[in-house]
């Protein structure tokens, strides 16, 4: 299954692009479309769900925007992710994150939405690296600070 997620807001360009290429895939596609206006005709969709966990876990490929919450939730499940920067975000910080993670080979970054179909095909031949979080001692830093 290919799962497409837009998170809290919307990403009509992505939901529409998937709709345009959906019939070319012999795999189920499910979309989480947020508060978007574009209604997909060629694949199943819903707006929001209390949890996306079961969709993430059942997906072979997940496609979404470059927000940290979405990406790291997916990477920590060992799932394959194709990321696109959301046009809703006014500065370029999603590009920084997508660029960084793509350079590390943890994700596939689709810079041009027209290339999305090609990127999905590309995953048949290339292998992404399994994400490992860095050592974390944030809890210790915060607790020590709170007890000062």
């Amino acid at each position, binding site marked *: 299954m290919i799962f497409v997620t837009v998170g809290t*807001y919307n990403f009509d360009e992505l939901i529409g692009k998937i709709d345009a290429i959906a019939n070319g895939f012999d795999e189920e596609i499910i979309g989480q479309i947020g508060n978007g206006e574009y209604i997909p005709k060629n694949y199943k969709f819903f707006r929001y769900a209390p949890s996306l966990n079961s969709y993430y876990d059942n997906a072979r490929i997940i496609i979404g925007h470059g927000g*940290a*919450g979405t990406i790291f*939730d997916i990477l920590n499940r060992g799932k394959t992710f194709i990321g696109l920067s959301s046009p809703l975000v*006014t500065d370029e910080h999603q590009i920084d994150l997508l660029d960084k993670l793509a350079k590390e080979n943890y994700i596939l970054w689709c810079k041009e939405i027209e290339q999305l179909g090609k990127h999905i095909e590309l995953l048949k031949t290339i292998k992404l690296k399994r994400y490992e979080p860095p050592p974390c001692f944030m809890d210790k830093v*915060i607790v020590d600070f*709170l007890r000062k």
Partner: protein
Amino acid sequence: MNNKKTTPKIPVTIFLAIGGHTYEALCIVNKLSLYIQPSYIICEDNLLAEHKIEIPGPITNIKPSLYSSYRKITLSYFLLEIHSFLSALVVSLKHLKKFKSHAIISVGSGPSFATIVAAKLLRKKVIFIESACRIKSRSMCGNIVYKFFADLFIVQWKEQLKVYPKATYAGRPF
């Protein structure tokens, strides 16, 4: 951190703004579960956050104010936002007093600004964690909080220490 069982848990308020920031914040809360008693302030447009909380605590809802990256901040927009900012400030003051929070933790979100100001007015500690979506730049809220409000400012990428030289890097919980 040695006397885990005997040391009482510290009341701390966690601010939950939009989806992605909620994921980051709750990963951190889960790591702190042995040491803090969380209470939550949740933006009203982030109702799904409630379902994602694993360490239970009392919840207060506030109207969102002061977005950073999803809206363009113009003067008229800013004036319109003043009302929601003030109401968020009052609700935050009540919450922090009622639950005797020692600190507020916010992960990189503009709407938490009123709650941060409330915490400062009450002389509570402000812990601000810049979102992991930032690597080479400052968020609008992070920039202001870094300069004027944060008692502990944490970044989640080593590269961010170039952007925020006085910040603390302590890895990432995800």
